């Protein structure tokens, strides 16, 4: 789940200062779960923008806001509403905003800030547990990721700031290395924690990431 937070309304208004009319794009997936781009929020945004004298020419809630082919299809289906608008306000993540970029010549603006890849703990509660590092080491850390869950991303054990199982930076957060220690101890695998972890390869995927799955022989076009 890509976790987003809506920008303050005055920031959104500033983004749209040159646009009298706006087309809204929501997302039925992550942004709906984060309550930043679901039906309710798109409706609310429509009302607030109208209240500020902006004309909302229409809106669409994508099934998945970052799917560029689907998005282009939807934009074609909403051609007239989109055509009348001066700008597109995207109420999903940064990926969704850039998917919209590919689908229209109009200026696109983000309504949200994109925060992290989060697990859903319960409705409206998210926690970052994966940092998308490209070189998963959960096999040696008891299924608990220090890259994501240790504030400093330390690979070889807790820092001196660990405090009764909590992180010195935020006492609400668990010290990942205390969790890892406890888990590995339970498994009788503390030798995994004792093993030296060398510096990480931060370039397993050359930035910006790109992945094209090889197609099976005989299927599809191309190679």
């Amino acid at each position, binding site marked *: 789940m890509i976790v987003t937070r809506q920008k303050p309304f005055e920031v959104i208004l500033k983004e749209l200062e040159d646009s009298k009319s706006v087309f809204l794009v929501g997302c039925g997936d992550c942004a709906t779960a984060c309550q930043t781009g679901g039906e309710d929020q798109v409706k609310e945004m429509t009302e607030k923008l109208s209240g500020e004298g902006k004309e909302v020419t229409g809106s669409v809630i994508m099934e998945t806001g970052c799917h560029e082919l689907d998005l282009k299809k939807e934009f074609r289906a909403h051609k007239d509403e989109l055509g009348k608008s001066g700008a597109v306000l995207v109420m999903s993540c940064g990926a969704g905003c850039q998917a919209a970029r590919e689908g229209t010549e109009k200026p696109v603006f983000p309504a949200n800030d994109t925060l992290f890849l989060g697990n859903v703990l319960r409705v409206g509660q998210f926690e970052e547990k994966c940092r998308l590092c490209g070189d998963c080491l959960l096999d040696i850390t008891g299924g608990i990721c220090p890259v994501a869950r240790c504030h400093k991303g330390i690979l070889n054990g*807790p820092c001196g700031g660990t405090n009764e199982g909590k992180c010195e930076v935020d006492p609400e957060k668990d010290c990942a290395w205390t969790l890892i220690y406890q888990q590995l101890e339970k498994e009788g695998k503390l030798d995994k924690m004792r093993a030296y972890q060398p510096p990480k390869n931060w370039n397993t995927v050359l930035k910006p990431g790109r992945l094209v799955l090889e197609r099976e022989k005989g299927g599809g076009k191309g190679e």
Partner: protein
Amino acid sequence: MSEIKHAKPSIEEILDNGKFLVSGEIGPPKGPDIEEMKEHIELLKDKVHAMNITDNQSSVMRYPSLATALLIKEAGGEPNLQVTCRDRNRMAIEADLLFAYTRGIRSVLCLTGDSVPVGDHKDAKPVFDIESVQLINLIRTMEEGKDLGGNEMNAPVKFFKGAIVTPEAVPLEPQLIKFEKKVEAGAKWFQTQAIYDMDNFAKFMKTARDYPVKIQAGLVLLVSVGMARYMNGNVPGVFVPDDLIDEMASAEKGKAIDTGIKIMARQVKQIREEGLADGVHIMAIGKEGVVSRILEEAELDITQL
């Protein structure tokens, strides 16, 4: 490479000779006016064997540790360069170490570094490309004539590698595993996080003595009862026992620092006489002027060791 003249013996030499290692600490200033720091260096350089130089301590931007290490060298003191991984990636650290080596810096204290949000550049991008254990290993790699990219350098470096350990960490076991990893990575001596409870410290040392490393007890000067209480409640891994808090509280108004000096002198003496550790690392944090008093009260003169 041309021979570098050293005014003082190295930390390695002190420890190898079985001497009780006494070090102090220089915290560089925020800004280019380094006159006061130079005075601190003058005050300390002959009273202690070596001086740590903090590296953007507490994630607060300051005059660089490497430049300060050179100033100490020029002043005839012995620097112990602290290197953190918070602000530099592995390439920048390697380059700094090459520079340090060519300028006669002989010991490096390897730290991960405090987190960025505790400091004064809260919006800065934290680096943490590597961390303390990997930093010790990085130096070992450079000592073998290679960099971390696996490339040959035109000559190897050599440093006496130090690290830190937090004896009062709760829980302690994960901390001890990390301590062990630092030893395996090549750390030869340790400075501890501030300790105040000698019984706890003695217990920790029982475990630590199983490892082939030297250990300096880290001592932070208490200057007020408020500070003692603050350290206890707010600094993870630091425990100030009640009797010391009471002792600080009973100090005459305006004389709390004298009590702090008395406490530290007593502890230095105890650590030395009972052989609790191989030395002390005195952190006077801005009160470098009183270090000589502490050592006098502890009856410790490094020229007589």
